[in-house]
């Protein structure tokens, strides 16, 4: 008896030491970090926190016998601030896993830290494929979409329709660079040509100068390698400057349903885009979306739905592993379990951290086709996960090759 008690005590000490300040027996604590007030706040923001809370409710509110704590923070699209918050969460606040983190620069910073601390990082909002490439981490999972899948979705579709000369309007940070690079690769592989690109600062109001340059390039397709209000402003101003009438076409490489909502169907109709989730696809997605809408007043973006799905998957894995402090045991469950919910549809988490699931190539409906508020997309094609995300060997993740 005595012997057994000593053993249990030793194990507890070992676990506590491994977890820093977090108590071994304490509650599982997760943090949702994103842009809560800036240009990405509608597509992630407070809605992502609601999504995480819904996931916790849906698994019964408790993991390992304790209620799950949720923290949230605003990184204001600054990588340095994201890093500071993550450090405080991991080192002082006993956070086990961070979720969401749109803005690729911020996500890359958090990924570094999470890898160092052996903490979990489930990325939904950020896009750069580097998160499962040269910046991959054994405890990092990239859930919702990435620049590779956008390139293989929208990029490929546009090239197949004959758009083979491109000019890029690129947001000047990690995300824009990644997206431009990935789409360029697809275009060039298909025999197309990239005529040039111009890089604009994140959060730009006036795109007229850039659009004029795109017009001057003579390219058939103007690829918008940006997101949020940057994309919506660029699309509207392209209309104003008669760019589409003059024969050039726009390819919005990353558009969220909140962007379409803000643009209105009149301006957005017929845009083709790639998304990891569309609320009005089947019974299950609609059921989730209605619940989400009741709490937030908007339909979920793919980022918010991804936060729900990844939170739920992670907490189930922790429950099964019986621990949150042993990263390896938890990650084994994360990789072994299929993602069987309305979002993943049987997706799985690859060795390099990529959650491989089907993507959807959609076309934005015209105002006449739309059957109500938020009924915006017609699904053109389901892109199988393997095709959308490409082979793991091409990603460049060090520890799997």
């Amino acid at each position, binding site marked *: 008896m005595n012997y057994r008690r000593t053993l249990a005590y030793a194990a507890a000490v070992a676990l506590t030491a491994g977890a820093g300040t977090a108590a071994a027996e304490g509650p599982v604590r997760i943090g949702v970090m994103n842009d809560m007030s800036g240009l990405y706040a509608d597509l992630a923001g407070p809605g992502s926190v609601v999504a995480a809370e819904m996931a916790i409710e849906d698994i019964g509110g408790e993991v390992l016998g304790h209620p799950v704590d949720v923290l949230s923070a605003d990184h204001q699209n600054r990588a340095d601030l994201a890093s500071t918050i993550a450090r405080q969460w991991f080192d002082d606040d006993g956070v086990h896993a961070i979720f969401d983190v749109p803005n690729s620069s911020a996500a890359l910073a958090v990924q570094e830290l999470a890898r160092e601390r052996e903490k979990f990082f489930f990325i939904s909002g950020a896009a750069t494929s580097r998160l499962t490439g040269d910046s991959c981490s054994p405890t990092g999972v990239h859930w919702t979409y990435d620049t590779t899948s956008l390139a293989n979705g929208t990029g490929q579709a546009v090239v197949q329709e004959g758009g083979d000369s491109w000019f890029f309007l690129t947001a000047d940070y990690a995300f824009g660079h990644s997206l431009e690079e990935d789409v360029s690769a697809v275009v060039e592989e298909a025999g197309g040509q990239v005529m040039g690109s111009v890089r604009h600062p994140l959060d730009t109001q006036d795109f007229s*100068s850039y659009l004029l340059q795109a017009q001057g390039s003579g390219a058939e397709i103007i690829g918008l390698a940006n997101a949020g209000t940057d994309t919506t402003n660029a699309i509207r101003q392209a209309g104003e400057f008669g760019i589409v009438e003059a024969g050039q076409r726009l390819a919005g490489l990353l558009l969220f349903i909140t962007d379409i909502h803000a643009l209105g169907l009149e301006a957005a109709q017929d845009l083709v885009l790639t998304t990891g989730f569309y609320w009005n696809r089947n019974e299950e997605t609609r059921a989730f979306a209605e619940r989400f809408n009741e709490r937030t007043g908007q339909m979920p973006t793919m980022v918010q739905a991804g936060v729900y799905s990844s939170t739920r998957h992670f907490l189930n894995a922790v429950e099964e592993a019986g621990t949150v402090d042993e990263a390896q045991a938890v990650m084994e469950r994360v990789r072994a379990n299929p993602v069987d919910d309305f979002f993943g549809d049987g997706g799985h988490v690859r060795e390099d951290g990529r959650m491989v699931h089907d993507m959807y190539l959609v076309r934005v409906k015209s105002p006449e086709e739309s059957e109500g508020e938020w009924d915006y997309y017609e699904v053109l094609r389901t892109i199988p996960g393997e095709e959308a995300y490409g082979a793991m060997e091409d990603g460049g993740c060090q520890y799997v090759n």
Partner: protein
Amino acid sequence: MIFDLLGVPPQALLGQLLLGLINGSFYALLSLGLALIFGMLNIINFAHGALYMMGAFVSWMLLTYLGIPFWPSLILAPLIVALFGMALERTMLSKLYHLDHLYGLLLTFGLALIIEGAFRTMYGVSGRVYPIPEILRGGTNLGFMFLPNYRAFVVVVALFVCLGVWFFIERTRIGSYLRAGTENPELLQAFGINVPRMITLTYGLGVGLAALTGVLAAPIYQVHPLMGFHMIIVVFAVVVIGGLGSMLGAIVTGLLLGVVEGFTRVFYPEASATVVFIIMAIVLLLRPQGLFGKR
């Protein structure tokens, strides 16, 4: 960079010059209001960007909820926002005139956060679309570029309003009272002029200018709660470069910086967000009173 410079055809430069002037006219209108308020009230009006945003939103609301089109709201929206501004001045700002600049700045900064926060809660950050008025749709092909009719309209209106305000302040009797009020309010009061009311109206005029700019901007940019936050920092730089309180300085510098920014977007787009501040730093080092400042 030299190669880039040579690689740009002259027509494209002409196009960028014109676009720069269009953006510059927004800067000019906003910085004019800011300079006016600083000159008369000695308040650094940090809420200027939020009031500009309000102008755009009020115009959108007039259209969406009441069906009032662009033309009437070009007058109505600035009036509504100016009234709101004057209420702020009467109830809050007027209590701070005898204190250091810093208090006015802090108060208006706080007000800006509250106004922007309120709109963010109501409409989210993605914002709404304001359609371009029917008769100004389309554009003209100038040979070197396609000039949307609406943007041409904006430049013309902005220049007229700027010159009108400048004329009003510098060349009319009421304008001379205003200028006298900044020099020596006590003396002016002794001549039987109601100085506090004059100050309130001046603030209203400055705010109205901001709101008018917002109404003009609504059909071009997405109408969203953070649109003023983008503008205000650049506009502050414009006012500092032009010389605090100098109206002519604000107008000329606004146009000039629009053009400089436009060219930067061609030659070195990565720096387009910072070029204004680099110029500001240089001007502050070489001519701290600003390009058009006295003293």
